[in-house]
C-alpha cells in the first residue's frame, strides 16, 4: 500500500516566493490490488505527485511510504515502483533489446518472458532502434518494459492515452493477473474520464494543488443522485428557494435545472436517501439515477468554489 501523507510541493526558484504551491498537504492511500485513477486538469499536480512517489522529486514537506518504506533516495522502496512518463523521446537511440537489458539490470524482478511475450503479441521488432518506430509503437514498447519489470506498483503518467484498443486490452489483462497474483496496483493519470470510469476502481481528483476527493469509484457514484420531478408548488418555482427547501429536508442540492415542467435536481446523497427525503416535494418521484464520473467532477468542483469546471468539460 502506498501512503501519501501531507505532501506539499513548492517549486520555488528562490525568487518567486508568492508562487502558489504545486501541491498543498495532499494525503491519500493507495491500496494493494487496485487500479487507481489520478484526475485533474493540466498543471493540477498529478504528474508532480507521481514524480514524488517515484522518488524523482523530493517533496517540500510530507512523506510517502511504499509498503512501509519511505521512498525518496531509497532503492528498496523504488524496487516496487515503475514510473512511465508521458514522453516517448528519451529512448530513440536504443533498441528494445538494449532497453530490456538496461531495466533487467535495474529491477530484480524483471522478466524477459513477459517482455518477449508482449512484444511478440504487438508484433514489434526488438532489435531495431526506437527511432524507426512510430510514436504509438514507442509508447507500446515502454509499456511493455513496464509490464516486464513486474513491480508491485505501476505509475502511468498519461501513458494510457496513447495506446490503441488492442494494447489497452492486453495491458488490462496483464494487470488483472498482476492484481490477483501479487496484489499489484496500477496508478493511471488521465484526462479521459470515461476511460478512468471504466478502468479504475478508485480515483482521486486534484485541483490546483488541493485534493478534492479520493475514494472508491462506486462510493463516489453512490454518493450523488440525479432526479427529475415535477414540482407543483408555485412557491418553489424559484431555484434558490427550492435549494433552501431541499436543504431544510437535510440534503445538499448541487444543481437545479428547469427543463420544461420538470426540475432536474442533483443532490449529494445516495439514491435511497434522496428519493425518500424528496418525496414530499412530488408524488411522482420514483427513482433517481447515478451520475457519470464527469458530472460528479463538475459538480464537486463547483461545490467547492472552483468555477473553472469548464476546463474539465472541454478537456474531454
Amino acid at each position, binding site marked *: 500500500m502506498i501512503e501519501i501523507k501531507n505532501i506539499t510541493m513548492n517549486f520555488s526558484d528562490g525568487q518567486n516566493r508568492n508562487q502558489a504551491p504545486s501541491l498543498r498537504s495532499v494525503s491519500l492511500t493507495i491500496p494493494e490490488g487496485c487500479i487507481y485513477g489520478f484526475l485533474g486538469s493540466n498543471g493540477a499536480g498529478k504528474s508532480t505527485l507521481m514524480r514524488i512517489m517515484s522518488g524523482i522529486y523530493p517533496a517540500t514537506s510530507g512523506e510517502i511510504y511504499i509498503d512501509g518504506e519511505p521512498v525518496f533516495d531509497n532503492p528498496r522502496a523504488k524496487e516496487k515502483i515503475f514510473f512511465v512518463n508521458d514522453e516517448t523521446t528519451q529512448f530513440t537511440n536504443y533498441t528494445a533489446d538494449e532497453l530490456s537489458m538496461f531495466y533487467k539490470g535495474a529491477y530484480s524482478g524483471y522478466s524477459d518472458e513477459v517482455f518477449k511475450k508482449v512484444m511478440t503479441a504487438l508484433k514489434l521488432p526488438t532489435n531495431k532502434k526506437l527511432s524507426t518506430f512510430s510514436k504509438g509503437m514507442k509508447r507500446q514498447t515502454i509499456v511493455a518494459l513496464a509490464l516486464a519489470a513486474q513491480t508491485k506498483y505501476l505509475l502511468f503518467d498519461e501513458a494510457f492515452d496513447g495506446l490503441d484498443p488492442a494494447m489497452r486490452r492486453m495491458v488490462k489483462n496483464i494487470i*488483472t493477473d498482476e*492484481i490477483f497474483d501479487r496484489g499489484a496496483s496500477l496508478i493511471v493519470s488521465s484526462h479521459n474520464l470515461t476511460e478512468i470510469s471504466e478502468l479504475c476502481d478508485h480515483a482521486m481528483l486534484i485541483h490546483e494543488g488541493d485534493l478534492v476527493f479520493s475514494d472508491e469509484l*462506486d462510493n463516489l457514484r453512490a454518493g450523488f443522485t440525479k432526479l427529475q420531478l415535477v414540482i407543483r408548488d408555485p412557491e418553489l418555482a424559484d431555484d434558490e428557494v427550492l435549494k433552501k427547501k431541499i436543504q431544510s429536508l437535510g440534503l445538499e442540492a448541487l444543481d437545479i435545472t428547469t427543463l420544461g415542467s420538470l426540475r432536474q435536481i442533483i443532490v449529494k446523497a445516495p439514491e435511497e436517501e434522496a428519493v425518500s427525503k424528496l418525496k414530499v416535494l412530488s408524488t411522482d418521484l420514483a427513482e433517481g439515477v447515478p451520475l457519470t464520473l464527469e458530472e460528479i467532477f463538475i459538480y464537486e468542483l463547483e461545490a467547492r468554489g472552483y468555477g473553472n469546471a469548464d476546463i474539465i468539460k472541454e478537456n474531454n
Partner: protein
Amino acid sequence: MITIDPSDKTPIFEQICKSVCRDIAVGALLEGDKLPSARELAKLLQLNPNTVAKAYGMLERDGIVYSVQGKGCFVAKHEGKATEKLTENFRAAVREALDAGASAEELIAIIREADRG
C-alpha cells in the same frame, strides 16, 4: 450468459450480481455449476477486477454462490434467494403502488399483461 450494459447507470457490480441471478433463475446455471473465476470474468468483459471481485463477494454473502479454496465459485443450492434478489425491486415497487392507492387487482392485471408479452 453474464453480461453488463455499459450504458446502464446501475453500478457494474450490481449488474454482475443481477446477471448471475438471472441465469440461475432461468435455469441456465444450475446448482453446482462453476462460475468463471473473477479474473477470467474481468478479462472477458474488460472490467475492473475489483469490481468483479466485489460482485462475487456480494453473491457469496447473500448465499447465492459459494467459493471453494483453490477451485473457484460454484452456484449454491437454489433456495429462491436468486429470485428473491431479482424481485427485491419489484416488491418495493408493489408496496409503493399499493400505498399510492392502486388495487391489488390492477397490479395483477399488469403482471399478467407483462407475462403474455
